[in-house]
C-alpha cells in the first residue's frame, strides 16, 4: 500500500502550458506539503496545508497554486510553465502530535520537464 502517492511520475510539456500534479496520502495525516528539488538536488518547501488550510506559502511565483479538496489530497497547479520550472516535485505529509517529533513522509516525486 502506497502511503503518499503522486501522479504523474513524469511530465513533459511545452513552455507556456498549464499542468497539474496530484497527491494523495492514505496515512490519515492532517498536514501536507509540496517541495521542489532542483537539478542540484536541493530540496525547498513550497507550500504546506493543515486540515485544508494553507499555513506555509514560501516565495513561489503566483503561477503555482496549490489546492486541497480534503485532508488526504493536495494538488499543485502550475500556469504558464517556464523552463526554470523543470524539477522534481515532491509531496509529503505528516501528523501533528503536539510537541512530538514530526516525521514527514514523502511521495515518489514527479519529474517535470519543460521544453
Amino acid at each position: 500500500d502506497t502511503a503518499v502517492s503522486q501522479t504523474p511520475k513524469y511530465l513533459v510539456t511545452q513552455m507556456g502550458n498549464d499542468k497539474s500534479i496530484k497527491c494523495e496520502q492514505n496515512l490519515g495525516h492532517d498536514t501536507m506539503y509540496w517541495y521542489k528539488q532542483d537539478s542540484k538536488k536541493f530540496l525547498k518547501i513550497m507550500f504546506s496545508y493543515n486540515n485544508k488550510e494553507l499555513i506555509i506559502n514560501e516565495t513561489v511565483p503566483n503561477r503555482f497554486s496549490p489546492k486541497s479538496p480534503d485532508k488526504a489530497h493536495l494538488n499543485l497547479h502550475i500556469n504558464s510553465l517556464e523552463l526554470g520550472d523543470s524539477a522534481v516535485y515532491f509531496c509529503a505529509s505528516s501528523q501533528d502530535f503536539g510537541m512530538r517529533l514530526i516525521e514527514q513522509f514523502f511521495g515518489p516525486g514527479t519529474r517535470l520537464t519543460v521544453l
Partner: protein
Amino acid sequence: QQQVKQSPQSLIVQKGGIPIINCAYENTAFDYFPWYQQFPGKGPALLIAIRPDVSEKKEGRFTISFNKSAKQFSLHIMDSQPGDSATYFCAASRRTSGSRLTFGEGTQLTVNP
C-alpha cells in the same frame, strides 16, 4: 540565506568505512534535526532524528552527534555497505504544526564494495 549548511557535497568510502556528514545551522529556534536518505528515483525517507536535549542518538548503524553550543550535528554510518549509497540530507525545523523542514544541500555517498 542558507540556514542549514551541509558538507561534504560528495563522499566516497570503502565498504566497512565510517562516512561522516556534517551540518551546521543558524536558527537557534530549531528544535528538531532529522536526517533523510534518498535513493535515485525515490522520495526522501526519514533515517534518524534528534532533539537538542540529547548529544547523541544511535539507531542500528546510524548515529547522530549533536553539539548545541556549536550549532552543529553530524551523521555517522558505521560499517558502511554498498546499499548505503544514496544522497543524505540533514534538516532542521521547529516541532510545531505544519513546521517546514529546512534542508541542507545534500551529500552524495558512494560506498564501494
